[in-house]
């Protein structure tokens, strides 16, 4: 249905380098241009794209390709290494007692993710609970409760209480026999100062072990400012990318990871509680560039 033509010109450019063993500056320029295009089309922040491509081109020219490698594989390996270096491994999540706070823009997928993560932890043998502190959005309580029910995990919320901080505090107490507490919050964005203050208060009350920013895979260049603001307010330890079952590449998450010096924890790819996976860098990078399994390619080198 949706034609995925992204990355095909990058592949074409790289193919031209296939037989060559020496690379000229011109060759590198051409490849780097295509990589820029792919990253920009994946919604990676424009200035980050320029930084990355500068690093890639200087390395491609400076470093001697290991004996027997083609110019193409040499460039490809550098691209892959630079991106892996930036995105890092999946956010560390020890399987032990912990409290996780979710934050993010309106509609990014926090409530769904809270239930998904609870389901994930329960499959790992831990007892999770979801705590819904969103007192603003109509139906937020029912939505979170129904999702927690379908994940078959404990739930706390209070439709009659209007203070999210009180709900968070009461919720932690009421679910004290759970091992993993996942605290959902109302949606908010960087320009809503009062709501940013509110999540600072929730963070204070909850004192979480991990604060995750939930980002829609389709978010554009605004990802940078949003991530900065959430990081300043509560400190972001990890990112969850949602809605990867669409065609968006999720480059905003790369920007966010760069801004917050964090990593990616989970990927969401559907509306049911089971549609969650731990982050894994090579698949994500392949998607960003619109190419097949890059890791395999680079392991050949």
């Amino acid at each position: 249905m949706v034609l995925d033509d992204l990355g095909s010109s990058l592949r074409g450019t790289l193919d031209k380098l296939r037989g060559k063993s020496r690379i000229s500056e011109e060759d590198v320029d051409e490849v780097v241009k295509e990589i820029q295009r792919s990253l920009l089309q994946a919604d990676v922040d424009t200035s980050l794209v320029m930084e990355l491509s500068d690093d890639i081109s200087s390395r491609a020219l400076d470093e001697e390709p290991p004996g027997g490698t083609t110019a193409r594989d040499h460039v490809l390996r550098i691209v892959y290494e630079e991106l892996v270096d930036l995105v890092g491994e999946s956010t560390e999540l020890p399987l032990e007692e912990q409290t996780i706070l979710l934050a993010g823009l309106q509609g990014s997928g926090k409530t769904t993710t809270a239930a998904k993560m609870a389901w994930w932890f329960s499959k790992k043998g831990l007892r999770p609970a979801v705590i819904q502190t969103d007192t603003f959005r109509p139906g937020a309580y029912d939505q979170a409760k129904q999702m927690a029910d379908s994940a078959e995990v404990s739930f706390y919320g209070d439709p009659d209480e209007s203070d999210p901080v009180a709900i968070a505090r009461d919720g932690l107490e009421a679910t004290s026999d759970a091992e993993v507490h996942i605290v959902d919050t109302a949606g908010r964005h960087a320009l809503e100062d009062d709501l940013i203050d509110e999540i600072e208060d929730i963070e204070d009350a909850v004192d979480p072990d991990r604060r995750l920013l939930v980002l829609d895979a389709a978010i554009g260049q605004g990802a940078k400012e949003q991530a900065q603001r959430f990081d300043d307010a509560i400190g972001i330890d990890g990112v969850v990318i949602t809605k990867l079952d669409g065609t968006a590449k999720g480059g905003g998450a790369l920007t966010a990871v760069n801004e917050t010096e964090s990593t990616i924890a989970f990927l969401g790819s559907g509306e049911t509680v089971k549609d969650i996976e731990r982050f894994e860098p090579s698949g994500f990078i392949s998607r960003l560039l619109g190419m097949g399994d890059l890791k395999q390619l680079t392991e050949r080198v």
Partner: protein
Amino acid sequence: KAKSLATGKVILDEDDLEEPLWDLEMALLESDVEMSVAEEILDTIEADLTGERRGFTEQTENIVTAALRDALLEVIDVGQFDFDEHVAASEKPVVIVFTGVNGVGKTTTIAKLAKYLDDRGYSSVLANGDTYRAGANEQIQEHAERLDKKLISHERGGDPTAVIYDAVEYAEANDVDVVLGDTAGRLHTSNDLMAQLEKLDRIVDPDLTIFVDEAVAGQDAVNRAKEFDSAASIDGTILTMADADAQGGAAISISYVTGKPILFLGTGQTYDDLEKFDPETLVDDLLGEA
């Protein structure tokens, strides 16, 4: 260029344009205009300007910016129609169906429009075609109660087409002016759900299909607008979350793809946070002239 200088004209060639056009492309991408759309716009500008004779006192940059302004307006100022007049002129009930991907603000926008119509003397009924998502009925129910509107809804798992159909019958029987039909969020890659939307569109045959997307959306805005338009032809777009993002390139991408106007901007989470869309203002914002 001696002759041109003598006559007070310079002729722009491709080299003069290369740098300003590159800068423009980056500026458009930074504003979330989709890449292929940005390139089409730049091609138009380049074709317009190459070989053009201009007074040499004019900076190439200014000439390019002026051309960009025209090109952007041309994309976004497409068949702009007045929503209020359209409602006034249409046979009642006016049936409006809202489509779009998950979580972009469809349900909230419907609630805002119910209030908007109310303020202008039109009655409306809400129809919850989202029979899928957890908490969807409770969410729209609460909006309906607060706004004192009738809500037609079925059990979770029911047929969305039947819900909207019921609401149309209700409106006919009760002289209600407008039916506001919600649909479940869905990604354009879900064949089943897109087919369901096609069916709904075919059977209900709404007066207006309004595509809802968010101003913070990036490059993917083009893909989804295209796919939703082909499933259930879009008559206009509402862009939410305009309060979170001053860029608004998504407006350009979506107008370009659908050839249909942006009607409103959502500018917050309360019922009054709905503004009429003005193409000139958006272009000024994009060009940093606001």
